[in-house]
């Protein structure tokens, strides 16, 4: 199956804004992320949040063909 990727903030600067990957059926977000880390080992230390189709998900979320998966750092915070 094929999924679309989006990256934001500091991650976008490293990975580009968009991408695409082909995955085995049943793959989770965590599996996808690990495959990206395998390509770019420096990502291993990055604090990361996941969203699928514009909704926050855990790494264990199972992907479906055509999903849009977004990767981004924690939100800015501030007081």
């Amino acid at each position: 199956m094929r999924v679309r990727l989006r990256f934001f903030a500091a991650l976008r600067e490293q990975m580009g804004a968009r991408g695409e990957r082909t995955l085995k059926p049943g793959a989770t977000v965590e599996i996808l992320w690990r495959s990206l880390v395998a390509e770019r080992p420096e990502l291993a230390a990055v604090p990361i949040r996941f969203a699928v189709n514009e909704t926050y998900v855990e790494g264990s979320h199972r992907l479906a063909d055509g999903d849009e998966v977004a990767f981004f750092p924690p939100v800015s915070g501030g007081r």
Partner: protein
Amino acid sequence: MFRVTRRPIVVATLLRAVRDPAAGAVVTFLGTTRNENAGRRVVRLEYEAFHRMAEREMKALAATAARRWALRKVAMVHRIGVVPVGEASVAIAASAAHRAEAFTACHWLIDRLKEIVPIWKREHFRGGQVWIGAQQGTPDTRGRAASGRTATRGRRRRPVDR
């Protein structure tokens, strides 16, 4: 009214959106660019959003707030792009019959917005710039984290300086 916009925030527009004949109180929060942060002289902030998801999350927060407190209406606007010192990057207005609910809900909404609405800021200060909020450091700045934040100083050609 839940909006991510590149234009300056007009508070009157939010006030109009939450106006309600049954409201006795309207509390408004504006987050503005401060000229100083963590000892750095801030020149401007720059915001980036996951636009549609951010608007969805703002709507969802307002719906949660409306279940928790007796509110009349809520409006939330976040500006993206460059926001100079003194200008507002985010505005929240909440109307309610009574003020306690309006204050509590408005405060809760901005706290939650800053935790979960996918919008990030890059601080441009004298001598560099830094993504705010990536508390563990991004690869390019690891080891130079200061007070829980990461900084890239100077004009070196590093990814975060682009």
